[in-house]
């Protein structure tokens, strides 16, 4: 076992983990952040996306120890029913949510994009969302939702 200290959604946790434990297992199993989903376990689907020091990562491909001393945002740290993030509101209003399993990862990828670039082009949105697979929607409504959220964030 090794010691790990990390910040998740602005709260700092100290815990002991196995050296070969994946970040997704630390988040889901040890800390209970089950909004982070596992779809493939090999970095293809993006359902396990979290934001690590401002950048999106597949938490199934990151070791827990690699998050030592770093800041993580999971879906539980983004918005709530009283104050949803513009991306979350846009996903609901555009009908971009079906089975919902890809949704937390999609929302985090879109949020990470808009945090850095509040006025992205359709191409930039496409690139930012390209690591997240959805089997239900056909992507069109998801891309429209991100554009709608961008308009709200940029005030355009």
């Amino acid at each position, binding site marked *: 076992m090794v010691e790990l200290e990390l910040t998740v959604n602005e709260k700092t946790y100290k815990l002991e983990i196995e050296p070969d434990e994946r970040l997704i297992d630390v988040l*889901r199993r040890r800390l209970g*952040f*089950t*909004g*982070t*989903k*596992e*779809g*493939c*376990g*090999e970095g293809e*689907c993006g*359902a396990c996306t979290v934001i690590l020091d401002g950048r999106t990562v597949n938490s199934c491909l990151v070791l827990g120890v690699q998050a030592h001393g770093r800041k993580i945002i*999971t*879906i*539980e740290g*983004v*918005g*709530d*029913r009283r104050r*949803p993030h513009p991306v*979350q509101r846009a*996903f*609901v*209003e555009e*009908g971009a*949510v*079906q*089975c*919902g*399993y*890809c*949704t*937390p990862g999609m*929302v985090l990828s879109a949020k990470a994009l808009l945090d850095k670039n509040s006025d992205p082009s359709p191409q930039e949105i496409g690139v930012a969302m390209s690591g997240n*697979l*959805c*089997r*239900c929607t056909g992507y069109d409504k998801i891309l429209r939702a991100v554009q709608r959220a961008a308009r709200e964030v940029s005030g355009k």
Partner: protein
Amino acid sequence: MTSVIGSRAVREDAWGKVFGQAKYPADVNLPGQIYGVVLRSPHPHARIRRLDVRKARELTGVAAVLTASDVPHNSHGVLFRDQPVLVSERIRMVGDPLVAVAAESPETAREAARLVEIEYELLPALFNPEEAMRPGAPALHPEVHGESNVLYHLPVVKGDLAKGWASADVVVEQDYSTQMVDHAFLQPEAVLAQVDERGHLVVQAATQYPHYDRGEIAHALGIKVSRVQVKTLSVGGSFGGREDISLQLVAALLAYRTLRPVKMENSREESFYSHCKRHPMTMHYKTGATREGKLVAMEARIVGDAGAYASWSPNILRKAAIHATGPYEIPNLRVDSYAVFTNNPWTGAMRGFGAAQPVLAYESQMELLAKKLKISPVEIRLRNMFRTGSTTATGQALTGSVGLEECLQKVAPFLWKEGDRE
């Protein structure tokens, strides 16, 4: 009066999903739960000569190692109970479940599964439905389905074929085939099963068919249906792939035997092995039309690969037969649709349910006929399509609204350019 048409409706569960609050079965846990895994066959067709689970049982942290003899009624299936919960003797496909293991951690359960010793007698496998349906091919289900591997045959006959062919000025004859497809729903199967304070078996899963799961669990375990509760949590996509029961049966069995809550989660790879696939179909089509571009005759032979177990195959090949003409009126026809057992992964429900595959064949036939007749692909469809008052191949009179012509006129400019005849 308010109308839903034209109004915007928000999905009931969308908010819970955008906040990551929606609970899928992998997200629920119980104190004291153990973890289940299934050991599956690496061979498509084999007999189990020897199965030794002693080493697996002796591993520290293992709560149960169960085999076919631990299943009171070892069969399940949506139409026919031809699929074992755990194989007792004859393996019919890669991925057939052989042994169920539960342990204090998922890692220990997987390690125990590796300690199971199995000796196989490998049998020649049938991978091609055409070979499997020939007389003399080894029968894959003599106990449930008899000596033939042809699970289902539906002939559809209409009009007078000889007359139809005699009036045809052009004929196109062609073979088509589609491939096996996995649903690849994003959420791999997971389940949490427990025996609760009432002594009832409570199974939480992502399923398309909870009432059927309930009956199958009660049947396999030999307990009353009223003592089984199946709760459907959020379902992370299914597209037909969660109609057959999956891990629910094994988790229920392990929970019932150990009296501990049992959690199971498939990896993506295990998910591919543990649910049905879309039927690959081979389709031989012969279609005839007059010089004016009117369809007058069609013969089609459709063979669907059912894989190792029946699942919904008869219903799916029935649907393929009913849709074999596409949305076109053909007065004289014969369709023969078959579902055939092989040692391939079993096939079942997937979006379209058998209606999707023949599209390739009948629409390609229309394109080829249009080319032969030197008329536009839109024109040949307009001359033959279903309209109000049309009668389908199976004799169904379409008396309600048929919006096909209006639809085609609207989309045609996007599909074909003006003067596009070749």
